[in-house]
């Protein structure tokens, strides 16, 4: 069973035998008298613990899908802003279409001011919705 690899591997059998001798003679310790009982107590406790509640996938999935969709939309919007901003800033702002006013009187035509306003509006809405949901959750608890 024993495989003495020391001397064969290094070409220094005497030194390896010395190391083998010293490291093989490690003292054995005996388990404490109550060790097995303590382990079994811990295992009984473990077995008595109810299994963890499974994650509510059915409830969470629609929210996750909507959240993902919103995230992708936001990503596209951010990319679009960064792609179109340089173009709109170099082109002279001549618009043939009649000026469209948004809910806050924002122009729909683009421009860094417009993008900033829309971003601020989106952030504001997100903040309000988070606050609202937190208040609702606190009210239920």
């Amino acid at each position: 069973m024993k495989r003495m690899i020391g001397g064969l591997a290094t070409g220094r059998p005497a030194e390896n035998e010395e190391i083998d001798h010293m490291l093989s003679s490690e003292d054995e310790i005996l388990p404490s008298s109550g060790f097995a009982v303590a382990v079994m107590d811990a295992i009984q406790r473990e077995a008595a613990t109810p299994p963890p509640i499974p994650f509510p996938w059915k409830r969470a999935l629609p929210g996750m899908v909507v959240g993902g969709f919103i995230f992708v939309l936001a990503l596209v919007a951010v990319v679009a802003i960064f792609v179109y901003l340089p173009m709109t800033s170099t082109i002279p702002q001549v618009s043939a279409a009649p000026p469209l006013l948004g809910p806050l009187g924002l122009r729909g035509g683009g421009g860094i001011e417009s993008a900033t306003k829309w971003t601020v509006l989106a952030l504001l809405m997100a903040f309000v919705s988070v606050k609202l949901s937190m208040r609702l959750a606190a009210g239920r608890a």
Partner: protein
Amino acid sequence: MSASEDQSAVERVLAGDIAAFEGIVRRWQGPLINLAYRFCHDRGRAEEMAQEAFLRAYRGLNQWRKDAVFSTWLFALATNLYRSELRRIPARFVSLDEIAEPADTRASDRDLEDENEDRNSTVRRAVFALPSKYREALILFYFHDMDVTAAARSLALPEGTVKARLFRGRELLRSKLPQMLAVPRLKEA
């Protein structure tokens, strides 16, 4: 107890007889505690780590594939746990440069047993000061009675890797403890 008894105990536990796990604990508590002790050289911590190993074994019993004997699986699980634990909270190791050479035996009037114990203790501390991958290979190799295959299984490493680490670990030991290893034990002669 034999491997088949381990297997039947595992099957009973998996069937819901938790008390059957006690047989496994009683059978393997000594080896698991001693293995932990070799990793940390702290009796209290060794028992804590061994207890955690048994708990993990209990939780993961259904993951034991019966292509290897139960003890092989148990030692691999315990070794993995001990290594992570020692990485998380290292044992009090000293660096290789801090390992003192043993006292001059000519000037000592202690008996041979004390002298050998000093030498063994110094070598063990030198092992503790080795980089972890060499230290772990040496610990497992000597724990498994110098069985490279068993050490490799416990470490989940190829045998060749373990042999290379043993070789390098011994080279490092030799470089730090040249006098002690070169001097023949005169009193024994």
